[in-house]
């Protein structure tokens, strides 16, 4: 069965028709061709599918695409416009090797954005608990924590702007 879905993703309006069985992660990836959101487990454990829904991070594998009708979504693609035009959080991850294979990274970056938006100067403990919903198998989290600390510094304690309208 089909359902109509109108969403705004990274400030761009989309109107698609989806199978009711489709989860939001698949809609973003297959219908909208935004493949930066990854699927690691499909059951809400690993966080690779993390996106922002109306400004709050959620696991898009646990949301039916049809249920996202009328909502605003930010995906990883909304944070940069080119390899040299990355969001400060992404720059911090690059410089501090907060990633290796990159599969968990989009979700991790969005969780970082959420954390620093709500808590611009988090302690290490707050960082670790803030990203506990994002599993990483490559990094052991150490450089991720460091990247987030550096990102917090580079944002200088100001709340991180969710998405720059980079046109």
């Amino acid at each position, binding site marked *: 069965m089909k359902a109509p879905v109108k969403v705004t993703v990274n400030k761009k309006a989309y109107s698609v028709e989806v199978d009711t069985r489709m989860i939001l992660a698949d809609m973003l990836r297959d219908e909208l061709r935004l493949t930066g959101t990854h699927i690691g*487990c499909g059951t809400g454990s690993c966080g690779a599918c993390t996106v922002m829904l109306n400004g709050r991070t959620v696991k898009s594998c646990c949301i039916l695409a049809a249920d996202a009708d009328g909502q605003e979504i930010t995906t990883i693609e909304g944070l940069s416009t080119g390899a040299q035009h990355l969001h400060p959080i992404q720059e911090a991850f*690059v410089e501090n090797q907060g990633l290796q*294979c990159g599969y968990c*990274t989009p979700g991790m970056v969005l969780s970082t954005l959420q954390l620093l938006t709500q808590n611009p100067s988090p302690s290490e403990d707050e960082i670790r608990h803030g990203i506990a919903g994002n599993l990483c198998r*490559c990094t052991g989290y150490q450089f991720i924590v460091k990247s987030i600390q550096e990102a917090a510094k580079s944002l200088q304690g100001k709340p991180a702007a969710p998405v720059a309208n980079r046109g």
Partner: protein
Amino acid sequence: MKYVGRSVPGMTNRVLVSGQGTFTADINLPGMCAIKILRSPYAHARIVAVDTSKAEAEAGVVTVLTGAEIASNTNTMALSADPAFYGGKGVKCYALPSKYVRYVGEPVAAIVAEDRYTAERARELVEITYEELPAITDPVEAMKPGSPVVEASWPDNVMMHKEFVCGDVERALQNAEGRVSGTAKAQRYAASPIEPRAYAANYDPYQDLLTVWSATQNPHPLRVLIAETLGVPENNIKVVQPHVGGGFGLKVPPFPEEIIVAYLARKLERPVKYVEERTEHFLAAGHAREEILQFEAGYTRDGRVTALSVKIIADVGAPTALVGWAMSYVSAYSVPAAYKIPNCRVELFTMVTNKCPWNGYRAFGKEAASFLMDRVMDRIADATGLDRVEVRLRNFVQPEEFPYSQVSGAMLDSGDYPRALRRVADLIDVEAFRKEQAEARRQGRYLGLGYGFELTPEGCSLPNSTLLSGYDGATVRVAPSGQVTILTGVTSPGSGNETGIAQIVADRLGVSLDDIKVIQGDTERCPYGLGNYSSRSLMIGGSAARIAADQIREKMFKVAAKALEVSAEDLAAEDNRIFLKGAPTRGIAFKDVASLVYRHSYGKEALDVEPGLEATRYYRIENVYHQPEVQGRFSAYPTWPYAACAAVVEVDPETGLVKVLRFAAVHDAGPIINPLMADANLHGGIVQGLGGALYENMVYDEAGQLKTATFMDYTLPTAAEAPPMILDHQETPSPFTLLGAKGVGESGVTGPLGAIPAAVEDALPHLKLALMETPLTPDRVWRAMQAAQATS
């Protein structure tokens, strides 16, 4: 600017952090069909009947592939390494079975449809009648005479029985002043990269070209294995490795799903894609490490081990074309790890069961040997009253004893184990810790410190293997404008070797890193290579790239020498210039030399050299011996990195919950090309090790049904469990290899397995615990505590 030895962030970071990587599941082609796999619900059964008619009748279904068609149209799966060659038993099995299923989750049919919803729905309509057979799920039971067999063509369940012996173990045990015995147990693991497996393929009937995209670590070997299995010439197959979301040794070929996807693309002449779900991954992508290690050790009063007898029973799951079984061999091969034991016997039983087959997982069996030795050393320390560091120091292979021939014939290259262990004790600050521990005890808190010492040989090379050999190739190419491209036979599933290889070449050619592009993972563009595993990519792939770069450098120096009217041996290259060593202002831009070669081929500078600036070279790593009859030894691993680890934990004595407070490691992998990448890999390895020590366990019930098929049950450490880690390095080069580098990729994974149980024991010394089994989940620690309190 020189790059080797510098901490350079990964070259792929910008693409990946933006979400702009292309992983196999991201590949979409017009007209692409979706594949769903129907998997066996039984651990052991005979396939009685297969009826696909209802499924095929569904609108949108393109075809349903079963074992019958596969058997008529393909060969049995080509193996990465055949156990039969190493004195064991191999199997011939097709990508889909027609007669028997031997583990829950084994692929039985493939449903292809226009979209994946239709494929999934149609999968439910495939009717397979099974006759259930007894499931063998216990490797010890599987050894008993009269046990039902897993593999119908074998007389028993023993895939391999091997023994490594030196000295006279029986006599030495009898004469020993002290003896300790016991059983260590390692659980079943799933490597669990965050990206599940995914494969896509397309076939062009006009070019007669099959293109396969695979989340694989080894595109060239995969191409060979597909060619052999499908009976298609290699020229007509191209394998591409897109970005891979973590491999850890798991994503090595050949998987039946890879063959199925390749076959279907050719048959349908349409693009196809298979993306597995995480539950399928847990069921079928490959498990690892489930071993029982029984030991008896004899020692002198001052703690020197004079005798060691080990029996390893490995449960490798059902026998297939996958290479994971070899990890059991490696476990036996690696005993007694970093220690010198004059009388030693290791007996290996590689047992098959009706469980998921093993495939590679980081440390590839070496972890078992070091884990065992850590626990043996600690037991001896307890028995003799020796300090746990001291007992190891007394038994280590000493620095002056390298190269050292171990019990199995393995040739340990170089190292300074005592220094590393002493250094890690400093790093974790054992003296300060003892004060902290005492103070905590006064507050009713239980802190403990434990050591683990891992010896992790790298560069695995076995005879007669399509996958596992110690050579690789690289092409270095300089463009007319002076830009450099490196094409490697090795690949990177995220570990960053492309950056290290670029650093090596940058230094040899004297160019800046920004002018280098690295291309990996394409069988049509890259020279033949074996891909990534056993930490070989930088040390073997990087060596090949260095040799190729040197060939280019030699040619460019000849041309530059002519241009500058000097002798080539007086030249050096750095910062995009080739210049006179003694008078650096006299030089010529690197790109100008390239231009001379390409644009003035007949000019005075370039006429003496062959045109072009491209070199493809191969490197075969030394310290590997495959001809024992001629060379007197068999040694499969060229390099021997090691790490001394220390963990501080807090144990909740009421619940058994263990929290790792901090972790230190002193690591030696020879010269480090990129310290940032090395540390990054170590962090990941250590946390995987902690996962094994405390959190991860793949559990089957007696009927062979998997109980842990989601991340809720197979729990990986999150950032909240991962401790802060302090690392230090020492660099003892290998005297045998070009770079002296030994490979970092599997380090860190093993040390925690010994350090954590030791730390828990140290936290509760009054209980005299002997924790010989992982994972140390709270209920297990609690139970051990209850048992100890009952007997005290």
